[in-house]
């Protein structure tokens, strides 16, 4: 009798214990696999730094060990919502660590990191904004990232690198969580939201670019926070809640131009879509109308703030955005569509061979997404009574169009960067293909049929496998194969990342020559000089004649004087290999840009060594710094007697 009365309670407790135990075991196993994956990536990075070429296998193995178990776990039928959210964040952080492991000591891989390093140094030194940034003048007018990093450096005493890594890590966590919440609200399914998060993590920029110390990578998570917070509080009459929305919008506006406009466009689309869906409803309630008014108000706030900042504060930004980037990309895309511009060769980067499987993976990933999109849009069409779903559909349909500029040399950058935005809508719509599994199960009364259970058992691995395929393929699209792993300290050819000896030379220049000296250097080293050395490199387009001239001739003298160059940083690695994409040492105007078959001529660099007017100031590794102040001020004119005969032909 006692046993009969107690058994349901005992059974309940034992079920709970068993579930808890299996949860602990699952998390432990998952944690071990993810850590093993990260260890594989670290091994691949270490091997690559030592010059071993076969370590890419460990890199891909590591990525699979991180992605696949998490994909399987978040798509699991019975996973708890919180478990899915936690795992999505773990995935975001683990993929962030892949980038940190590759470059664990300094910002060397992306030139944008050095642009924002310079901004941060300027704010730390002066305590104020808008110092001239010769690397990208527009960047100093969007100081959100640099200012908060400088503040963190001030408070903690950490290096700029460490503080920057922390800020971007926090932003990554914020993005993962806010995107999950928004997708969940949109689809009404945590499983769909988890699938959407996985698909977003597969966007070509997510692994490396979105993990870099760049203003967009702080602004985008803040914008996601605005959207989620507004969705959460728009029906509220709670004043402080709206104050937080406005503060977050302000943070976005002062951090990144495009994200400011994108947020405005998104809120505007939301407001319009809410109007459309409310018209379909016979009698929208007062709360609905008030919620829409709040969205409209925040659209006005975001739009006005973005425009005011662009027009009155960040004045160089308009020409940078439109004249330098968007219009040329659109023009070239149009020209390509008309058949006037040749197609860019995909998976082909100067001097580096891409494994064929990467090409296949990239094409397959794009094909999977293009095939899934119409089915997903069909699903989404049935949910068009929800305003955010209409917005997501509008963003998702842009995806096929966004692939066209990728086929042109200039448009590829715009297409790649656009994927960070377009994948947000695309992931939410395609994620719907996974979400119905949950709805169907919920609608069933009693135990599901055995066939459904078996089908479900297979469906989760198939979906996880497809998303993994997309992830791997998109990684190969977003990052050239030679850039997946860090470079060796002494690369055989011309490097694609900033080398330690260039950082050392830049630091020496700052300490011994002072800051803001006018330097001439190749494009890659100029970023290090500007970032680590706080120097003002002359525009690469203006200084290439100084380096390309075979002798110390009139062209060299005129270029030095015209550009008021005081020092030259010469990197002898230029003579060891051709530059990778975009295919130039200095700028696109230099001879043979994008068509190099031979490395830079040795004699063209040796001419500085032989001239009495260019005393050697510094040498370290492959880097030398020459003083050309006497040429610049006219007190010394190089003699043709010092000309070194050319030993190599000018590259063709």
């Amino acid at each position, binding site marked *: 009798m006692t046993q009969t009365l107690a058994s349901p309670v005992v059974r309940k407790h034992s079920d709970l214990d068993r579930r808890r135990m299996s949860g602990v075991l699952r998390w432990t196993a998952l944690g071990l696999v993810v850590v093993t994956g990260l260890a594989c990536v670290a091994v691949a990075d270490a091997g690559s730094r030592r010059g071993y070429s076969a370590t890419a296998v460990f890199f891909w193995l590591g990525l699979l060990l991180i992605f696949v178990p998490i994909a399987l776990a978040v798509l699991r039928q019975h996973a708890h919502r919180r478990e899915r959210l936690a795992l999505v964040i773990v995935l975001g952080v683990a993929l962030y660590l892949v980038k940190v492991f590759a470059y664990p000591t300094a910002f060397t891989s992306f030139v944008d990191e050095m642009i924002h390093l310079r901004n941060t140094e300027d704010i730390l030194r002066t305590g104020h*904004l808008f110092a001239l940034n010769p690397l990208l003048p527009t960047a100093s007018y969007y100081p959100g990232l640099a200012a908060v990093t400088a*503040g963190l450096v001030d408070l903690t005493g950490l290096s700029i690198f460490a503080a920057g890594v*922390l800020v971007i890590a926090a932003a990554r966590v*914020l993005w993962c969580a806010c995107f999950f919440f928004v997708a969940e609200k949109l689809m009404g399914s945590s499983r769909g939201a988890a699938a959407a998060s996985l698909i977003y993590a597969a966007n070509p920029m997510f692994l490396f670019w979105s993990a870099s110390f760049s203003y967009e990578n702080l602004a985008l998570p803040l914008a996601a*926070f605005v959207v989620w917070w507004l969705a959460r509080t728009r029906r509220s009459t709670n004043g402080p809640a709206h104050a937080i929305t406005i*503060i977050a919008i302000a*943070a976005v506006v002062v951090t990144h131009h495009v994200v400011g406009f994108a947020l405005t466009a998104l809120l505007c689309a939301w407001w319009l879509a809410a109007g459309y*869906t409310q018209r379909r409803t016979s009698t929208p309630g007062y709360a609905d109308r008030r919620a829409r008014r709040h969205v409209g108000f925040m659209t006005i706030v975001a739009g006005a703030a973005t425009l005011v900042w662009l027009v009155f504060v960040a004045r160089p930004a308009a020409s940078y955005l439109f004249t330098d980037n968007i219009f040329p990309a659109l023009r070239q895309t149009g020209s390509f569509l008309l058949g006037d511009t040749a197609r860019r060769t995909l998976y082909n980067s100067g001097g580096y061979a891409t494994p064929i499987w990467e090409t296949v993976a990239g094409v397959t990933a794009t094909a999977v997404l293009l095939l899934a999109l119409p089915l997903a849009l069909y699903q989404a069409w049935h949910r068009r009574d929800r305003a*955010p779903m209409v917005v997501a559909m509008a963003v998702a349909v842009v995806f096929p169009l966004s692939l066209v500029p990728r086929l042109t040399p200039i448009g590829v950058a715009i297409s790649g960067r656009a994927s960070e935005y377009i994948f947000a809508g695309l992931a939410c719509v395609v994620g719907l293909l996974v979400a119905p599994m949950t709805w169907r199960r919920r609608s069933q009364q009693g135990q599901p049929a055995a066939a459904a259970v078996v089908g479900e058992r297979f469906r989760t691995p198939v979906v996880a496998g497809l998303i993994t395929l997309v992830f791997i393929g998109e990684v190969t699209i977003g990052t050239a194969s030679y850039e997946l792993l860090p470079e060796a300290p002494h690369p055989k050819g011309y490097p694609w990342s900033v080398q330690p000896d260039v950082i050392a030379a830049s630091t020496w220049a700052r300490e011994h020559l002072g800051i803001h000296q006018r330097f001439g250097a190749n494009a890659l080293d100029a970023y290090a000089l500007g970032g680590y050395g706080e120097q003002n490199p002359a525009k690469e387009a203006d200084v290439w004649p100084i380096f390309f001239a075979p002798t110390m001739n009139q062209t060299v003298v005129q270029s030095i004087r015209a550009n008021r160059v005081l020092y030259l940083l010469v990197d002898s690695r230029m003579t060891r290999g051709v530059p990778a994409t975009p295919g130039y040492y200095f700028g696109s105007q230099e001879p043979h840009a994008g068509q190099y078959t031979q490395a830079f001529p040795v004699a063209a660099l040796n001419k500085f060594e032989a001239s009495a007017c260019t005393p050697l100031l510094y040498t370290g590794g492959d880097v030398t710094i020459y003083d050309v102040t006497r040429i610049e001020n006219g007190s010394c004119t190089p003699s043709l007697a010092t000309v070194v005969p050319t030993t190599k032909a000018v590259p063709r």
Partner: protein
Amino acid sequence: MIRKPFAPLAITCIVAALAVATAYVGVPQFVRIVLGVLIVFILPGFAAVRAVFPQGRLALEEHIVAILGTSLAMAVCAAVLLAAAPIGLSRESFAVALGGFTVLLSLYAGLRSRLPTKTDGQASVEDD
């Protein structure tokens, strides 16, 4: 004795005050790092979210995300405003600004939690 709902706010105030103090007093770097990370990424957002939702209507995971997002947004705005102002961005000014906001918002949150609440004044989970 501090009532339970006020204890987190009181602790927040104390940690914020400590963070401000370390801007003026030399302390080991580990302490600076811990307090600096707290004052930039957590404390202002915690106080602000408590001020918005005194009764804690958010789910735990939403609460954590709201804290992080609000803190980051406030830190960015505070840093930019200080750097744009004549006072400039420095260890002291940044610590005082964030610490001051945190203390003020904590006090406001404490006051709000003592007031009777209107149910329609709270944000609600929506279907849209």
